């Protein structure tokens, strides 16, 4: 456990080099998406969604989606590089660290990145006055839940490939549909049956629902509990898959 903190520390030292450039995009991206979708598209959605103004409705979806995107970004190229290009995992494996420390420390850093971009988004959203409830604070743990549920299985996937063209496939055939169909921009009910089931199967849709309940101050009810548990199942399964793949690569 303590050893994974050292791994987290290593990633933070690395992040210190790039945080300025990434901080800018972390703030600008939510601003642009809110202006583009919230105000631009929102102007045509006069009636709002389920009685909520379109901007207020879309912001929590965008937050959950940003958490997932940040997690995905960290769980793909950096992981592949640590195995194939910079090979830092192999250097770490030669130290007293165990596979769980190496994996756990890197995932902890990914969650740190998720939190940073979530907080940035919340600040921008607060400036637009779209956060309606004190429950908004629950968005922080929720974003980690969403981030981990996506990051863990994707880390397992990345640990199983050798070239980055497989990452392009992942983004085209898994990430893009997940982002589009998970109720971020429009209600899932608008989708035809099979796509609706796909949306429910993937983790992001549940994260969007829970985040939306938090910022709008709605009661997610028992269904919300099941959704959180479903995300947790993705986290746990993803963790074990990732650990298995890491052991296959690092202990040979």
């Amino acid at each position: 456990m303590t050893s994974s903190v050292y791994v987290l520390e290593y990633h933070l030292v690395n992040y210190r080099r790039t945080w300025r450039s990434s901080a800018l995009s972390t703030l600008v991206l939510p601003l642009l998406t809110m202006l583009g979708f919230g105000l631009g598209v929102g102007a045509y959605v006069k009636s709002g969604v389920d009685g909520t103004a379109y901007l207020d409705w879309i912001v929590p979806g965008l937050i959950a989606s940003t958490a997932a995107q940040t997690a995905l970004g960290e769980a793909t190229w950096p992981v592949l590089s640590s195995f194939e290009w910079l090979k830092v995992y192999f250097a770490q494996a030669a130290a007293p660290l165990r596979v769980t420390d190496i994996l756990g420390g890197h995932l902890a850093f990914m969650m740190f990145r998720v939190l940073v971009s979530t907080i940035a988004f919340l600040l921008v959203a607060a400036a637009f006055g779209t956060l309606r409830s004190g429950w908004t604070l629950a968005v922080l743990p929720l974003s980690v839940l969403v981030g981990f549920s996506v990051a863990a299985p994707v880390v397992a996937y990345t640990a199983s490939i050798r070239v980055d063209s497989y990452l392009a496939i992942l983004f085209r055939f898994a990430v893009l549909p997940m982002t589009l169909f998970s109720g971020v921009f429009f209600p899932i009910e608008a989708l035809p049956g099979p796509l609706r089931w796909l949306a429910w199967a993937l983790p992001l849709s549940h994260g969007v629902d829970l985040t939306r309940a938090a910022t709008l101050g709605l009661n997610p009810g028992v269904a919300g509990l099941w959704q959180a548990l479903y995300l947790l199942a993705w986290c746990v399964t993803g963790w074990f898959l990732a650990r298995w793949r890491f052991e296959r690569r690092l202990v040979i």
Partner: protein
Amino acid sequence: MIKRFGDFTAVDGIDVDVQAGEAFGFLGPNGAGKSSTMRMIGCVSPPTDGVLEILGMDPRRDGSAIRARLGVCPQLDNLDAELTVRENLVTYARFFGISRATARRRADELLDFVQLGERADSKTEPLSGGMKRRLTIARALVNEPDIVLLDEPTTGLDPQARHLVWERLFRLKQQGVTLVLTTHYMDEAEQLCDRLVVMDGGKIVAEGSPRELIERHSTREVVELRFTAEDQGMYGEKLDGVADRVEVLPDRVLLYADDGDYALAEVHRRSLSPASALVRRAGLEDVFLQLTGRTLVD
């Protein structure tokens, strides 16, 4: 000790005993099983079969505790290219639970030791091959290890960098650190190793000190002859008996004899006039080629 990957046996039952404070070498051509052996000793690769004990511990059970007392310099540098030279050492020291202050102090000492002190704050990426190698060696020393594992420590370095690395490794040895290294450079093995084994095809084919191996597997001296004729092969017969062993290569003929000058005189007595002749002491390279053959292994 045995290591198998599926049907392929990389290390086929080797038996090695390294004493504390010793410099021990694994020699062999590519694919001999040296790196697989090193990974097993480094506790990142469990042996398929056999017994392995390091510092009195069992890697299967105490891998982490053993690795805490090892320094590993892998064949390919796996430094973090994006961090500075010092950050590479400090972050790595932290993996051993070394406090930040101690890590920074030790990093500075080690950078002086490998003559990289002036580059402490520059990025690692643009360093030359020799500098990266020295930094990797410095990183292997951050935990003040009892055993340092070096997998081909000077492959790809220019002569200046090689000699600097050798000198630093020699100083470590003098400090009582156990060195375990692989190499296919014979001069490196002769420079550094108290004792070594020659591996081929996953097996040990010879064992001893460099001197013992030369005495056992080669003559004291070697005469290298070059003839002007295209085909050196025809000289094989004519030279029969001038030395203990005659080896005809495409470009030259080697005579293995305890007295090289005497053998060369014998060549001249037979009215053979090579274009050039060189009498030299036999080295580990002769032993190595004798034991592992001249066929190229890729």
